[in-house]
């Protein structure tokens, strides 16, 4: 029986952090006891960004440090720049970023091919792990994909025959 009763007192450390004052309806505020409520602070030195960094329009000033991992570029970059004309409360902002992400995937493939590299998609999707630990699942997926492709070809041929 998996769910046999559990005696809390047998659990190592039971109750060591119990605190009746931990009242989540009263969120933690101003634990530094700062009379200004911490509204002002000495800002860290500003990082000089060496690439384009899109910034939320909700900021008065850009945060002191910024990430520079993958600057916006290409068609997805154009969409991202448009997205950052809207605030974070606008669906347009997020949906445009999601659209840019999808465009970016295609750009990634094009970029690979342009560099003479054919992406090994099965390896990138962890095919080796699937083969080692889920052979039946892999076979089912391949069969399903084959059936879908076969169906697509059949429908296309029937449609062509119909047009003739």
């Amino acid at each position: 029986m998996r769910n046999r009763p559990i005696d809390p007192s047998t659990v190592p450390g039971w109750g060591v952090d119990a605190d009746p004052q931990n009242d989540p309806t009263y969120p933690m505020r101003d634990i530094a006891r700062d009379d200004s409520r911490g509204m002002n602070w000495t800002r860290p030195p500003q990082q000089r960004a060496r690439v384009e960094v899109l910034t939320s329009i909700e900021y008065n000033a850009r945060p002191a440090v910024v990430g520079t991992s993958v600057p916006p570029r290409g068609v997805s970059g154009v969409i991202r720049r448009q997205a950052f004309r809207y605030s974070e409360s606008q669906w347009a902002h997020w949906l445009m970023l999601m659209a840019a992400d999808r465009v970016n995937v295609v750009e990634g493939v094009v970029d690979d091919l342009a560099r003479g590299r054919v992406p090994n998609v099965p390896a990138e999707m962890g095919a080796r792990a699937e083969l080692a630990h889920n052979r039946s699942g892999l076979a089912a997926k391949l069969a399903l994909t084959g059936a879908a492709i076969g169906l697509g070809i059949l429908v296309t041929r029937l449609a062509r025959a119909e047009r003739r």
Partner: protein
Amino acid sequence: MNYRGPYRVRVDRKPIPVCEHVEDAVIRVTRTCVCGSDLHLYHGMVPDTRVGMTFGHEFTGVVEEVGSGVRNLAVGDHVLVPFNIACGRCHFCKQGLFGNCHEANAQATAVGGIYGYSHTAGGYDGGQAEYVRVPYADVGPCKIPETMDLDDAVLLTDVVPTGYQAAEMGGIQRGDTVVVFGAGPVGIMAARCAWLFGAGRVIVIDHVEYRLDFARRYCPAEVYNFRSIGDPVVFLKKTTDSLGADVCIDAVGGDAAGSALHTLMGTKLKLEGGSAVALHWAINSVKKGGIVSIVGVYGPTGNLIPIGNVLNKGITIRANQASVKRLLPKLIAHIEAGRLNPKELITHKVPLEEAADAYHLFSAKLDGCIKPVLVPPTARA
């Protein structure tokens, strides 16, 4: 590690990062984990996740280089790095809310900076690499105690504090019934930590049997597979004298299974900020006046949340990214005292070069995977 699109990652050569700010450090990674939150990125659910980005917000490493403004770290220190990038001096950091720093994320005000977690979280490359840039190096990194196992240390960067804070935000009182939705590493840790706050009963809900078995042993908790108990809300009400649980913890986030509608809207069409099934169940199965604690990650667009029930039931909802730095001293003490054994969560230790397989293994829940750790070649030499 190089993200190429949904469900596609590979390992490539990239330039070694450099200090870009006076308070930066560059760290040579010794351990790095794949987090359940990384799977939301991997599944293409978090906006502004750009092709070419390196994920990884859970890592330990050796300091290789420090900027001119760094005082507390020296080259050669072995550190664990909290996943939050925090300046330590802004309005939020002063309140201990290191997960909400105002000086680390240009792209959004709603979330702080996080390593390797899309441009929505600042656009920083993460630690699933040999080297990583660490901003505000005086604030986040914590020297690993000499007696601490590296595998314990790397889990202190996210899993342990997030699980602990999930329980803390629940305001658990002695004897409370706590329900944790999700038996991933964070859910398991949240359930384990619920006991530290004096819970009287801890219940874990998931749909993957091996994860439930693990939670039953590790936490220990009562565990239920939602596919075999019918409606989980009805089940939980009936098992709590129809009152509902005192505290419900959502440790799932936007990848939740269990509802065709949310799966279609949230995970397939991405018209919701993820599938909010676990949050629905949490709100609907907590008692009136109870507390819902959310640490599962959701995307930023709208969700079909039963907000009317939140009002009618007088529920308190607390949610946040864990403020790792605030919790570290207490959690290190718990590990040293043997009250928490995080490294037992690690089921797979994989070379960094095999990141694609590790991601698939974790995402598809194969081979009993609870928590994979990646080890870079420079750490194996």
